[in-house]
């Protein structure tokens, strides 16, 4: 049987959703026989490949770079999953939304720093005015809220998708 191509993406989040994904523990062995992880923080690929079956996206869209990435990912993905509250609602990254970007950076990197009081610009994308959920940029096929979503919920979802079932609504998945 052809393996299902799965990608994972880390936008503006804390990597907790990826940790939860790794928390499926031993189940990862059974899963490894059925899927190929073709892109993401867990593997080496530099560029997001074409023809991905399932992409799990952690994090909010916070910069123009994030927005460009999620556009490309959408074009190259069959089933796009917003994984976790940051991707679904904006969550903690969006708590900065009430503060204008210049003021925020000044507060954190200048007023809040003891040494090296300088706002970083090298190699970091400029922030958008708001951090916002994925669905405001691209069509999202499945939302999995939670901060992070429990490993069991992620496993259950992947199981459903691999067996070609319509993912069952998980009563244990909640915001937060």
């Amino acid at each position: 049987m052809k393996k299902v191509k799965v990608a994972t993406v880390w936008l503006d989040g804390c990597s907790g959703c990826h940790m939860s994904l790794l928390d499926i523990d031993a189940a990862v062995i059974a899963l490894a026989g059925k899927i190929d992880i073709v892109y993401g923080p867990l593997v080496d690929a530099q560029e997001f490949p074409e023809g991905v079956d399932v992409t799990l996206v952690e994090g909010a869209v916070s910069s123009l770079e994030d927005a460009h990435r999620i556009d490309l990912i959408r074009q190259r993905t069959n089933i796009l999953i917003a994984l976790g509250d940051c991707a679904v609602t904006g969550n903690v990254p969006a708590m900065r939304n009430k503060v204008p970007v210049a003021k925020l950076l000044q507060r954190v990197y200048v007023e809040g720093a003891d040494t090296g009081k300088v706002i970083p610009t090298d190699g970091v994308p400029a922030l958008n005015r708001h951090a916002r959920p994925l669905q405001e940029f691209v069509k999202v096929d499945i939302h999995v809220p939670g901060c992070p979503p429990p490993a069991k919920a992620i496993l259950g979802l992947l199981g459903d998708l691999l067996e070609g079932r319509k993912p069952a609504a998980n009563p244990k998945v909640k915001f937060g």
Partner: protein
Amino acid sequence: MPQKKISIRIDGELVTALEGQTILQAAQEAGKAIPTLCYLEGLSPAGACRICMVEVAGTERLLPACTTPVQEGLAVTTVSARLTQYRRMTVELLLIERNHVCSVCVSNGHCELQAMATSLGITNTRYWYDFPTLPVDMTHERFVLDHNRCILCTRCVRACAELEGANVWDVGGRGIHTRVTSDLAQPWGESPTCTSCGKCVQACPTGALAEKGAAVEEMTKRTDRLTRLAGSKRAQP
């Protein structure tokens, strides 16, 4: 004088109700659960949240079960695809109009709004988040009012007025600018009428009213105590 008995239908089932009861009360007595948010047993109903909407035969309009009195021959539907759709939309609107960051909220895991979203199967909102800038009133010695989490259910207003008799809380402003206010819209800590009883905190279904010092997930509410208190108050007029 004993209340007059009347017959109504709830989801097709013939139920005996008492004159003066609301649809919600009659349904609850018949063992039928209608979802509610602004209703708290023991406080007067306010009809503020519109989660308890039901279909009533003979009218196109949906009616709130918590404020609509029963009438002889009334036929009510409490579960339908249309009702679920509207209930979901209502909860989604509550979620987007303030800043509900459940993961860092004192009420995470004990919140009636969060639980309602889960039970309605809401995994995301169909509307864009508003991300408003809202104040947090920390001036009270023991309690906090966080407008970011308020759903304007007015349970605090009613608990304070009806159970404590202090009338600290009210609702001010209009539309999207509506806020709960203490006394004459002054900081809570400066309220000359607040007795610091904490009934409003216990009545609040979300993390909007909390005890100071409560960390994420630490705020649990005892609404059952308010209901019991209201019951004993009624028993001794």
